[in-house]
């Protein structure tokens, strides 16, 4: 965990430095005792200090009680599955507007279940369609919220 924490601390420090430097270009307001740059600037400083403390703690701590940290490696099966899953989710979200919720949802559900290792196809098909209809129907008819219809827009 030691190495992972050090990486986290340094990432946080870089993040805070970037945020801090961005506040320098904020518009200056006249006649205002506290401008829009005040909070972000101090918060970035606070984040930096906390990350520094974490860094020092970790550097000084011995390796004796170190616990193994979760790693991010592309060789890991779980990580590969995660990336594939995230890709399905992102593509699914991007498809809402062009393709429509009704068409995209069963595909995404099916794909994700397949990725998770489910192979009972009848269950998967029925569940994908049923989940889509229940969610779509509940939102449209009970809550009056229309999901994007995409290409089906002209039909409904």
């Amino acid at each position: 965990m030691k190495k992972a924490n050090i990486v986290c601390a340094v990432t946080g420090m870089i993040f805070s430095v970037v945020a801090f430097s961005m506040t320098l270009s904020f518009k200056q307001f006249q006649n205002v005792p506290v401008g829009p740059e005040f909070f972000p600037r101090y918060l970035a400083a606070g984040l930096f200090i906390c990350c520094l403390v974490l860094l020092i703690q970790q550097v000084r701590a011995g390796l004796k009680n170190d616990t193994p940290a979760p790693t991010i490696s592309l060789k890991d099966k779980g990580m590969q599955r995660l990336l594939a899953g995230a890709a399905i989710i992102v593509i699914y979200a991007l498809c809402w507007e062009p393709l429509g919720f009704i068409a995209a949802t069963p595909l995404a559900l099916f794909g994700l279940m397949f990725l998770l290792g489910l192979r009972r196809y009848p269950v998967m098909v029925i569940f994908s369609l049923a989940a889509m209809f229940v969610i779509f129907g509940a939102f449209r008819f009970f809550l009056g919220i229309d999901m994007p219809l995409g290409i089906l827009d002209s039909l409904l």
Partner: protein
Amino acid sequence: MDFGLIFSSIAPVFAPENILFILLGATGGVLIGSIPGLTSTMGIALLIPFTYGMTIIPSVGMLLGIFCGAMYGGSIAAILIKTPGTPAAAATLLDGYPMGQKGEAGRALAIALFSSFCGGMIGALLMTFLSPFISRMALKFGPAEFFTLAVFGLSVIISISGKSLVKGLISGFFGLLIATLGMDKVSGYLRFTRLIGFYEGVPFIPGLIGLFALSEVYANIENILKSEKVTAKISGVLPGWQDIKAIARSVVTGGFIGSFIGAIPGAGGDIAAFVSYSEAKRSSKHPEKFGTGIPEGVAAAEAANNGCTGGAMIPMLSLGVPGDSNTAVLMGAFILQGFQPGPMMYVEHLDIIYAVFASMMVANFAMLIVGMCGVKLFAKVISIERKLLIPAIMVLSLVGSYAINQNMFDVYFALVMGGVGYLLQKYEFPLSPILLALILGPMSESNLRRFMQIDNGQFWRIFTKPICVIFLVLAVASMIVSVRNQRKINKRVARSGGDAAE
């Protein structure tokens, strides 16, 4: 008190069709609350058009049913799928979800329901008998007071940080910094980004869904083979006597904390639940068990957020000042019916006021009944196969993010926050401080700047305001106690060598 008037005004509340409307509202509320992204505010707002053709008593009864039901409903998702169904249930998941994972989802749900009911009743009773006194306090809250209240709320971060204080603080600062993205609510200046989705600040609900629900979806996809099936034992729809004894104190304290915080305009169930949780942990004999799935944690949070329902009604009815976003929408419903909430309401329509008090209590009973019927059904969700459940949660999360504003930007934001939440959790940074920061960051910043503008930049004046001093003292005291407690916990864990605080 004019008992004849009280009796004649509350009689219509108990008419069968009115009870039916309240039950309908409570059922809808529990369902809406249990779906992340659908908040009670939204439920009330969506149902208002249906009340156009109704008279005041059934329409207000139905809306109060939603309000109370949704407050409990939020805990269902928190316990079962580690996602607060409503922001107010965020503190419930700290102990509710671990309970569910231990196979005690039924017990956790029953405790949440019982505490919600008790908290709600405490709020309703306080509303009935103390409205005129408490409402005077609400007006005393100006920008300076809100700022110090927010600072007090933020001090809770320390007690919910988990094992590493510094990591909790990093999460907190990270959340506060994220909260400054986009439109600055005081100057109108766009900070860090010019994306249209940030014009009203950071989209809060999509952020919440991303951090809690989607991060969990990602983590589950990664570890699907390792995850074990969780089953839920169901002993009863209400907690057993032993549990009730254990949680009694947290429930009563939580109910009062909730009512008090709810009565402050602009402070809602989310803040109340965290404050109450922190107080329960502070005063507990075994603070190290908080976060591992203990009944008191669930009870403290749920009693407080339901206590808020009654509390928030106080300034709305007696001052015409809504206590939170729910009551703001409810106030709209009153106005649409031709009643202007405010001090005159107590003079001109005392009968309506009494009917509202009675409806509030009936709504809490309705929530209890609906909840009792639902406990067994809800608890089954946890034993659905993960390979089916995870994809369904994914779709529901995206739909929930979309539903608030019906725009795609919020969905993309939720996806990004999901990734951030996944990484943070993987490296043991707690997520709750980020949520608290997203709620309290804008509140503390805008109010500090408003105060500085009104008082010409003289910050010291804050120490001349009694309420501010009280909150600042509370904040400092809470921080000191939490840090000491955490040290004790760490020592105890180190001594026993076990992973009690894991």
